Structures are given as C-alpha cells and as structure tokens.
C-alpha cells in the first residue's frame, strides 16, 4: 500500500495521459457541481493529492448504496477512485473473508490512524446490539472504534445519515444515525435511498481534491448536491403554478406530464440533486418517469404520511380526532349547559319581586 505517491504520479504510472487526466478533472468538477472554470484548480489539487486510505463499514443496510456506487455511471471514475483511494475494507467488495477481513481492517486503521476516511452505510441498532454484529463485534462498538482514527466520516445513504428505513416507526432495532453516536468527528451526510451514484463519488472526489469538508446544510449534507429544493428545480413546476395536476397515475394529466403533487410528490420538502443530475446516467429521475418524489434524502421520509398522500394530507386521521373532540365537547357542553340552566332557574326561583319600594338604594320609608 504505497501511500506516499501523489495521485498524479499514480495516474501516469497507469499510462493515463495528461489529456485523460484533464478529462477526469473536467468530469469530476462537473460531478461536484463546481463551475468549469474550477477545472485548472482541481487539476492542480488532484495532481498532488495524497492517496487516502478509505474504510467502508456496513451496518444495518441493504447494500443499495454500495450497489449504487459500484454501478455509478462513471466506472472510469470509480475504477480510478478505487485505484486512487485505497479502499482497504468493504465487506461486499473485498475478496477476503473470515478473520482476514478483521485483520485488514485493524491494519488499515492502525497504519493510517487519524488520516483515513471512514465511510459508513446502514444505521446502527442501539436498541439491542445483537440485531447487527459482525464477527462478534456489535456495529455500535465497531463504529465508535473506527471513528476514533478517522479524519472524517461520510454517512452514505439515509440510513447512515438519518436512520433511514430501519429507523422508521416503530424502529424495532432502535436504529440510529451515525451522527447520533459520533459527536466529535466531522460527518458528511450523503443522504438518499440510495444516494445518486454521482453524488457519492462527487463527495469523495471533493474531499479527495480539496481535503476539507464541503459546505453543508443544517442536516450536514453537502450543499453542492443537497442545496437545491427538488420542487424549485423540477421541470414540471410550471404545471404546479397553473394548477394543472395529474389526478391518477394514468389519466390525461399524467400522460401530459402534469405536476404530481396530488399523487403524493414530496418534492417541495426534499433537497437533492435528482432534478438536475438525474439517475441512471442522466437518463431520468422519478418525477420525469411519472412517479412522485418520495423525499428519500430527508429524515423520517418513510413516516411522511404515505408516499401517495399529497403533502397537504395530514399524517393523522382528522375525522377521528374531530370525532373525539366532538364527543368530549358534547359531554362537557351538556354538563356546562345543564349547570347554566340550573344557575338560571335558581335565580328565577329565588326571584325577589321588585316593587316600587325596591327601586332605590337604601331602605325606602
């Protein structure tokens, strides 16, 4: 594991021409949503970026994020990145198995203590550690231990970033996000279920090239990719303005590509790059394929009141609560009403007839 060589040297060793390197920088900049004018700066930064060690820990996850990353549509980038970054530990991808895996993990951590990048996907069960342990070590312990030596942690996917689906109500395993456990390390949340492949590699590339944390929003997500509201960037927004909505998935409106607000689209409350970067090599993205956005890059997106209930549908049954209110109101109302009547009738019963002598204060002669 030669860690001293710079990226530039490594590329040349693999016969990558300067032109190839320029192409790599241009596409990386584009991937990081940086302006093309940044390419020279990226080229310089990449040139002498050190080759970091990367440890990937998987906890309660469905391997969707890994799937997304490995099929990211810039395999050259992926190949390169994997060549460039020394991915020292990844359960699914690494050939080794059994104890060899543990040793590789500990060696990598020991050797690059304080410098390696810790990538995590999947949420961590704190309810009962037994839910997810790897070779006898609970996810919780493994994470805390791995985090000690990490330069920075990247939570890949909504599970690692916010707890994701395991965290959804009723959250049997007590799944929590990485940021709920590790408080002392810089954490980049690359949420999404899964995140857009390009977003994963983009964040890695950005951290790799600039070596520091990208600008993040209040949920710790890189603004480069999560700064824009899906609704604001959606090409169907004009239909929302005009009030033209698809009522069902195959009606006239849907065929005409009208807004999917009424079909449960969570675009307005979701921040991600789907509307611009799109999925499957820029082919399309959920709304463009006729399905509302699920809001998968947001915390608790699974409990946002149903994927097919529009944003304005409350997550509770108002009819039921109203009925409860009515019943209580009726009960208390009848009681209060009866009290009022009693008070009024009592006043009537005790009525002291007013005579002409009772019209003035002070006893009249």
């Amino acid at each position: 594991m030669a860690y001293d060589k710079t990226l530039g040297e490594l590329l040349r060793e693999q016969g990558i021409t300067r032109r190839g390197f320029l192409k790599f920088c241009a596409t990386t900049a584009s991937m990081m949503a940086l302006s093309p004018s940044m390419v020279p700066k990226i080229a310089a930064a990449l040139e002498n970026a050190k080759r970091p060690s990367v440890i990937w820990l998987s906890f309660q996850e469905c391997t969707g994020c890994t799937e997304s990353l490995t099929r990211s549509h810039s395999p050259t980038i992926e190949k390169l990145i994997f060549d460039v970054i020394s991915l020292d530990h990844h359960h699914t991808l690494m050939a080794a198995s059994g104890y060899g895996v543990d040793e590789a993990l500990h060696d990598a951590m020991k050797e690059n203590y304080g410098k390696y990048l810790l990538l995590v996907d999947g949420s961590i069960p704190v309810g009962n550690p037994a839910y997810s342990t790897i070779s006898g070590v609970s996810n919780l312990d493994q994470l805390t231990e791995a985090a000690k030596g990490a330069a920075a942690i990247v939570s890949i996917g909504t599970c690692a970033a916010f707890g994701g689906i395991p965290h959804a109500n009723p959250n049997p395993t007590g799944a929590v996000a990485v940021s709920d456990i590790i408080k002392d390390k810089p954490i980049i949340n690359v949420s999404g279920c899964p995140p857009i492949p390009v977003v994963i590699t983009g964040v890695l590339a950005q951290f790799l090239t600039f070596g520091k944390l990208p600008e993040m929003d209040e949920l710790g997500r890189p603004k480069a990719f999560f700064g824009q509201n899906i609704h604001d960037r959606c090409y169907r927004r004009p239909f929302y303005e005009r009030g033209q909505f698809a009522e069902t998935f195959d009606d006239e409106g849907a065929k005409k590509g009208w807004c999917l607000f009424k079909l449960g689209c969570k675009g307005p409350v979701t921040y991600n790059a789907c509307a611009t970067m799109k999925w499957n090599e820029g082919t399309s993205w959920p709304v463009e394929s006729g399905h509302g956005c699920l809001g998968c890059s947001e915390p608790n997106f699974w409990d946002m009141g149903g994927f097919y209930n529009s944003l304005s549908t409350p997550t509770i049954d108002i009819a039921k609560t109203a009925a409860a209110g009515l019943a209580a109101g009726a009960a208390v109302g009848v009681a209060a009403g009866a009290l009022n009547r009693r008070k009024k009738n009592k006043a009537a019963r005790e009525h002291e007839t007013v005579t002409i002598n009772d019209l003035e204060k002070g006893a009249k002669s």
Partner: protein
Amino acid sequence: MTSVEFLQWVRGPGLAIASIIFVFGMTLKVLEIFMLGRKKNLAELRSSGVKEGFRTIITRFGAVDRFTTRRTMFTHITGWVFHVGLFVAIFLLTPHIELFKSFLGFGWPALPTAIVDFVTVITLITLLIILFHRITNPVLRYLSVGEDYVVWVLTFLPMLTGYMAYHHLFFPYTWLLGIHILSVCILMALFPFTKLTHAVTLFFSRWYNGYMGGQKGVKQ
C-alpha cells in the same frame, strides 16, 4: 428539532391536538348557547318568524340603509374583500383542497395557484389596512380590547406564512410549511375561545334577529 421533524409534528400531532380543541370548543360553544333556551312568545304574532329569520341571514350580508352604509363604507368594503380573500385562499387552493379531500372524502375544482396567490396579496394588504383602521378610528379604539388584536394576528399569520411558504421566501420550504401549519393550528386551537366564533354564531344571531322582527311583521 430539525425542520423535517418540526414539519412532521405539526402535520401530525400538532394538527390532531388543534382539531380536537377546535371541535371540542365549538361544540361546547354551540351547546352553551342553545341549552340556555329561550322563552316562547305568547303574543299574537303576525308570522311565525322562522322564514324571516333565514331571510335575515342572507340580507344581513349586504348593506342595510344608505346613511349607515355611507358612513361605514370602509368597513363594508374591507370586510368583504378580506373575507372573500380568506375564503378563496382556504377553499380554492389545490393543496388545501387535497387536505379537505383527505378527511371529507370529496374535493372540488381549484383556482389556478397564481390567482389565489394574487388574491392572498390583496387580502394581506386589506388586513393591514383594517388593523390601521382599528387603531385610528375613535369608535374602534374605544371598543377594541386585547383579544381583537390577538385575533387579528391569528388571522394574519396563516395568510402571511402561507404566502411565504408558496414562494419559499427567506427560509427553506420545510420550515415555512411547518410554521404555516403551526399558525393554523394555533388559530384553530384559540378559535372557539375568541370572537372568531362569530363565523358560526352569526348565523344563529342573525336568525334570532330576523325571527324576533318577523314575528312582529318587520321583514329585514
């Protein structure tokens, strides 16, 4: 608490609590009114008065006599503009219709969102004018108590935050939508304990007014 958790709270438990208090309060109000009862009129009546009562419910929306109307033209116009604006914003905006559809089971056609947006601006401006009038007009200053201004704020906030939410003004949409729904929850919770009850009780009052007049043969 993050913006999403806040939004989920107001869309869920927040709205639940508010709707319970609202229905509870209004039921209590209606029962507290009607259980007090009313004596039967033993006089020889010119008519039962029931029909005149309903007629007054309608006629009292409009102006009654020229003199008073000329002196209160301001209140008439701003009152109408603001109430119509409120109605349009609440009942003719697609997201709101979806909300009603979720618990009523049926919906109705909406106005284009841009038109509702324009109406909302007019309503907000009218509300500000109404507040200025309440502060400056001698009668209104004499009459107004704290509750009048609280109710003004309760009505103004949902409209303002709704407008801001629609335009993603200054804050992310998640926060704004949450604040908008919260302001509606507060409005609903305080509704039955302020003069806002007039939205329901004015129909009883107008009916009684027309009923009592009608019995004596005075149609209004």
